[in-house]
């Protein structure tokens, strides 16, 4: 099928073509309290053909996978490219890429979630829900999402790449209501979506980090987390409303991953820097002149941020990207200085890069591939430190766990983040729970206020299935690693209102 597409594109005059044949499987189990609301299996199969003709891109996709359907789609892609060529100011130039021949890659899972009996998965969610309800929750909504992308890529460069990618995301929200005041408080799960199999849901005491709540590394105890969430949602009702002002923030990886995603991941995407996202997701403050200077001070010297398409267990791990470039790891911020971007083949040459970094991805066979975020992670500190060490040096601060509300401007300067759990720190001690907390900062000022990072014993991944970008909008699954990190003197606002 791939050769039919490539040959048809070539015969119509394409100077380059690639084809992705994909079977995308998802499974969702959706529950609330003692009820399974639905069990859903989805499957989609089709082909996407991308070509360069007349110096311009064209793309067509179809679920008609007979010879005629594939050839017609290839022909349509070439005809669209030719139609657009008159609008092209300069022909598309692809960074060179060798063909890999016939190769394959699989997410290294231990237990395929799709092969675990449905009954076992629903029983897990029902047990989780029952634990939360028994511990005082009024409501719990929980779900389990499984993803399997089976995709075959081929290009006129001579690559034939077969990949089998798995992801899993267990998630819940617990709600606790105070019927007298009419107020409600929620606590979301602290587990992460990961590029793993069902083994992620086998608790392991050796992979837990105990503190004000239990935190999880590589394995998730969903049952324990739900039990704790019910208690903590109740505790939030009597928590002190935060006094707005400057605080030292100690951010757990369950919170910091999202701040990394928005303030480091997105602004270092080269398509934003160049203006390709100006009409939707926005551009970037990390402009080319700052990179070219070789000394743009993004953060303090402690800040080392890497892009990595190979990291085991991460959502972005692949063997090759969706234009046949091998997965790799590279620096974005080195000792606080901007040193590189995330690029794909048709952008690399614009800024003089010799190769793509392999950041091309499409959410399905139906959509065209384009530049998407790699796993972007803050490297752990080299000095031995655990979260308690960071807290004991804080005079006035807040320890924040879990991700909450998030928003950032279209060039990634001004952001506001909230969280799930907030603990006041006074004179090196945690003194109690706070609520109505959100922190606002300028990206560069925030990362320059980074004063301590825990070591790799505390390093954990967070992430999302739903990083949105592009027109038409597509989702990208991406992970962000960090260890607990301290930021000094950050502006905290109080979000309580009355209506």
């Amino acid at each position: 099928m791939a050769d039919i597409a490539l040959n048809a594109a070539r015969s119509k005059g394409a100077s380059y073509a690639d084809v992705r044949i994909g079977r995308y499987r998802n499974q969702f189990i959706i529950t609330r309290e003692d009820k399974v609301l639905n069990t859903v299996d989805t499957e989609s199969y089709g082909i996407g053909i991308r070509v360069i003709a007349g110096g311009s891109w064209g793309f067509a996709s179809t679920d008609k996978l007979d010879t005629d359907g594939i050839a017609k789609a290839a022909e349509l892609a070439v005809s669209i490219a030719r139609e657009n060529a008159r609008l092209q100011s300069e022909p598309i130039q692809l960074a060179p890429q060798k063909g890999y021949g016939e190769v394959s890659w699989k997410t290294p899972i231990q237990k395929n979630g799709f092969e675990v009996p449905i009954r076992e998965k629903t029983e897990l969610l029902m047990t989780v829900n029952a634990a939360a309800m028994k511990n005082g929750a009024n409501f719990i909504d929980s779900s389990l999402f499984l993803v399997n992308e089976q995709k075959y890529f081929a290009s006129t460069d001579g690559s034939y790449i077969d990949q089998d990618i798995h992801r899993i995301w267990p998630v819940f929200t617990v709600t606790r209501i105070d019927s007298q005041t009419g107020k409600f408080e929620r606590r979301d799960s602290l587990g992460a979506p990961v590029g793993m199999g069902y083994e992620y849901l086998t608790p392991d005491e050796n992979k837990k980090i105990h503190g004000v709540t239990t935190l999880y590394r590589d394995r998730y105890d969903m049952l324990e987390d739900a039990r704790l969430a019910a208690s903590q949602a109740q505790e939030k009702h009597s928590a002190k409303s935060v006094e707005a002002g400057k605080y030292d923030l100690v951010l757990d990886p369950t919170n910091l991953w999202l701040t990394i995603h928005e303030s480091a991941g997105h602004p270092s995407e080269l398509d934003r820097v160049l203006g390709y996202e100006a009409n939707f997701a926005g551009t970037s403050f990390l402009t080319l002149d700052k990179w070219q200077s070789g000394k743009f001070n993004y953060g303090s010297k402690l800040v080392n941020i890497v892009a990595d398409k190979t990291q085991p267990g991460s959502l972005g791990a692949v063997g090759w990207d969706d234009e046949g470039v091998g997965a790799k790891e590279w620096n974005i911020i080195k000792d606080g200085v901007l040193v590189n971007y995330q690029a794909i083949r048709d952008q690399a040459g614009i800024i003089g890069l010799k190769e793509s970094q392999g950041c091309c991805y499409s959410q399905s066979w139906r959509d065209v591939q384009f530049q998407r975020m790699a796993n972007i992670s803050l490297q752990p500190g080299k000095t031995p430190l655990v979260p308690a060490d960071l807290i004991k040096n804080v005079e006035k601060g807040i320890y924040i766990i879990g991700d909450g509300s998030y928003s950032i401007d279209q060039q990634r300067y001004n952001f506001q983040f909230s969280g799930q759990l907030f603990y006041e720190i006074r004179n090196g001690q945690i003194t109690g729970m706070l609520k109505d907390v959100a922190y606002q900062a300028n990206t560069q000022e925030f990362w320059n206020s980074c004063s301590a990072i825990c070591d790799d014993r505390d390093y954990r991944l967070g992430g999302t299935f739903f990083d949105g970008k592009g027109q038409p909008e597509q989702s990208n699954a991406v992970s962000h690693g960090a260890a607990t990190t301290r930021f000094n003197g950050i502006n905290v606002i109080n979000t309580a209102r009355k209506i």
Partner: protein
Amino acid sequence: MALLTADEAQTLLKKVLSFSTADECEVTLAGGDSGNLRYARNSVSTSGSSHSMQLVVSSVFGRKQGTTTINEYDDASLQKVVQRAEELARLAPDNPEYMPFLPPQTYGPAARTFIPATEAISSKLRADLTAQSLQIAKDSGLTAAGYIENGASFSARMNSHGLWTWHTETGVDFSVTLRTNDGSGSGYSSKGYNDISLLDVPGATKTAAWKASHSGAARAIEPGKYTVILEPAAGIVLLENLYGSLDARSGDEGRNFLSLPGGKTRLGEKLVDEQVTIYSDPWNEELPSRNYSGEGLPQEKISWIEKGVIKNLIYSRYWAQKKGVKPVPYPDGYIMTGGNASLDDLIKSTEKGILVTRLWYIREVDPQTLLYTGLTRDGTFYIENGAIKFPIKNFRFNESPIIMLNNLEALGKPERTVSGEGGGTALIPPMKIRDFTFSSLSDAV
């Protein structure tokens, strides 16, 4: 590629139902063709076309439900997808909230949602329209990034109780951002219709060009409370979070902004200024929509907020039965009434204020008060003595649409507006609001 006809869809769905051994089975088939052209840096960046169709099978035994989807249509695949749905249903525990699939319903007439001229849009027309937009950018000395997308689609539903629904729709959306070459100014415009003949690409591009050309060298003014005029493209992204939250169940359960102590809700309460009236009407000529809901319930003209009072809430079929009321489905489009004043009229009536042309990255901060945060973007201007005086730097806001609509001063003429966040379409007037809360400055352009 031509869309499936109703007869072809019926034939296929009857065949799928014939494979069912479940107590109940419902099948839906949706598909269509779409094409798009995306441009940036004054050139095409991506452009393509897609043809696809998806079958959804929901099988039920007693109160156990399983759902599967597939896009392969040979008999073996169809049998496989039905069998898999039945397997999932058999393995599921009873859902006490399960509601049987609907019997045949009576719907109002189909609204004019399908326009053949929109279905016929070609890659040549997309390129021609883009060329017009790029020429305006070039003539104005600006850099353009934009997007045009058109589509024609159908959806069909059939179930074992005899329900049959059929809907076709076309759409074309255009949006463009023009930026000054030094990056100091930016302007945006977006339009979306069922009918291509209503789309004015040069007009929209000129609007964005004016904003870009006049938004450079923006001045910083102190964050705080200001009178603002929200253009419809700015207002829609806050309003959609209000009307999308009018859910009876979560209110009754005590977990949304409508909840009151003791399990009561604000239904029937005057919650916002009496100038606010929001309703839905599938047969509105400017915003035609499907005459039935996602579950197959008839859609009707319905008032959500009338003169500031919460009049109706969404009731799922389960919750309606539990509460002994009629189910009220989510509509496909919302209409906020306004007056006859133009945007210029609102500006002329403003002594001191801020014109906000677009809001961005709207996220919920507190569901209890419907507090949202986000930022202004692509052209924010200071108004003094009834005229735009100078561009200002962008702000972050923290504001609740409930508080905002209590501070409503005046409304202009509603216009069809596409949300730059959720992608939904509504008729929204420009709004003049006092004491809108900006909490910090942003350096973004």
